[in-house]
């Protein structure tokens, strides 16, 4: 047993890569029901903020993600848009991130909005890419003061003023909630939207960035936050519509179990190798 464990210590890591890949495919092929945990305070905060918006109210979504963070941001955008559609809340989408973001947002939102009977221009608008290379602070400030000066046409090239929904959105005061979903949302949103105008802001971020934002949840500067696919899965449970987030977090549970197992076995192997070495000496 000891010799076998010691051999694990020198295992080629490529076998581990292969084992992880196979393990991750299992929950994608076979749907395994897993117990659902309760929603975290951060997830519940965003859900309550959306619930507080009256039907017909307007929410602004900054969807600034692309392929680089699709693995978690896609599910985070999907579940919130689905909730907005369930409650007949209208929304405007901007992309302050990369040039690819408007297309990713369009592809994610379009099927959900169409299924809910949302009409483009009347119920939702994709305002497209907002160039922010000179820094987010001046862009967010200007966006809050006069949206129409920052984007004069939507993603399809239609003048913003011609879209019925945009006639009602001029400043940030016309918006009930701002939801920023990207790899690492910028705290400038907190300062220049919540701090200056009092409009609630919520974030959807990659798991690895979450510890940077917990402090803003505690201080109530952020009304809520979705953390990775786990946050999306919790949100899907709250709106009673399990979808992408639930499936991906199920696979992540398998992956995390594999990492824990590999760490335990690796350490046992190292211990056995040292012990064998001492005996040999």
């Amino acid at each position, binding site marked *: 047993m000891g010799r076998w464990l010691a051999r694990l210590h020198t295992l080629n890591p490529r076998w581990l890569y292969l084992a992880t890949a196979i393990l991750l495919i299992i929950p994608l092929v076979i749907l395994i029901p897993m117990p659902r945990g309760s929603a975290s305070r951060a997830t519940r905060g965003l859900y309550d903020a959306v619930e507080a918006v009256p039907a017909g109210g307007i929410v602004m979504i900054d969807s600034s993600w692309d392929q680089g963070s699709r693995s978690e941001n896609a599910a985070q955008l999907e579940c919130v848009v689905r909730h907005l559609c369930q409650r007949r809340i209208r929304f405007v989408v901007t992309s302050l991130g990369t040039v690819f973001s408007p297309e990713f947002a369009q592809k994610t939102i379009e099927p959900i909005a169409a299924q809910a009977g949302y009409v483009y221009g009347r119920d939702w608008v994709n305002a497209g890419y907002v160039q922010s290379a000179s820094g987010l602070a001046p862009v967010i400030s200007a966006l809050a003061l006069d949206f129409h000066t920052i984007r004069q046409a939507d993603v399809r090239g239609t003048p913003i003023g011609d879209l019925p929904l945009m006639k009602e959105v001029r400043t940030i005061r016309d918006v009930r909630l701002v939801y920023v979903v990207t790899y690492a949302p910028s705290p400038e949103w907190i300062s220049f939207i919540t701090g200056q105008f009092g409009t609630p802001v919520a974030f959807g971020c990659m798991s690895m960035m979450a510890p940077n934002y917990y402090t803003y949840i505690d*201080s109530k500067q952020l009304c809520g936050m979705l953390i990775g696919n786990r946050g999306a899965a919790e949100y899907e449970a709250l709106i009673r519509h399990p979808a992408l987030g639930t499936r991906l977090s199920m696979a992540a549970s398998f992956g995390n179990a594999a990492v824990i197992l590999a760490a335990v076995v690796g350490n046992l192997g190292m211990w056995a190798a040292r012990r064998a070495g001492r005996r040999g000496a």
Partner: protein
Amino acid sequence: MTDPLAVWVGAIVTLGVFSYLARDNPFYRLIQQAAMGVVVGITIVVTWKQVLQPMWLSPIQGALAGTRDWTGALWLLALVPGSLWYFQLSKKWFWVSTLVSGLFVGVAAGLAFKFRILLILPQIGASLKPLNPFAGPNGFTWEGFLDSSNNLLFLAALLTTLLYFFFSVKTENRWVRTPIRWGRLMIMVALGAMFGNTVMTRMSYLIERMQFLYEMWLRPLFPG
């Protein structure tokens, strides 16, 4: 419906990137360079089509042609500060570029002050948390006791972490050394949480690619 050609290209590129796990190879490097090229190309096109053309060129053209408000021609003035940046390429005329860079630094500094004050001040207020478990409206409750304990832990972590970064105190003193060690422990806990989340994010990347390979590429190849 996704274009099958796009799915095949996506699958080949994904497998090419994964091939790096076996060893570094020319196919992987080719994909890496191609991805960078595509990103730069698309960024230039989209920036022109969605930003510069509609927001800068069209108002000028419209104003000069008389089809739009004459104020659109004022956008020509943006060329003056914009072109000043290029003087950074000349040693002799470098000072000209400082006129515009100074302006940018001034604006950025002003916004940074506002940004930090609006961000940090509420944090200080939120750090003052009740520590007395008997102070609740219903007197002592277990929930209140747990909240107070949590707040006490928060306060200890806050003060000891601040002390850890307070370099003007001699650390030989036992009364200072112990809290500093506690502060370091708190920082290690925070970094551990960050590392755990990083592992989760990396796992999500892999899962998303596996899902793509299985659902978009392999499953349609073997229906039923």
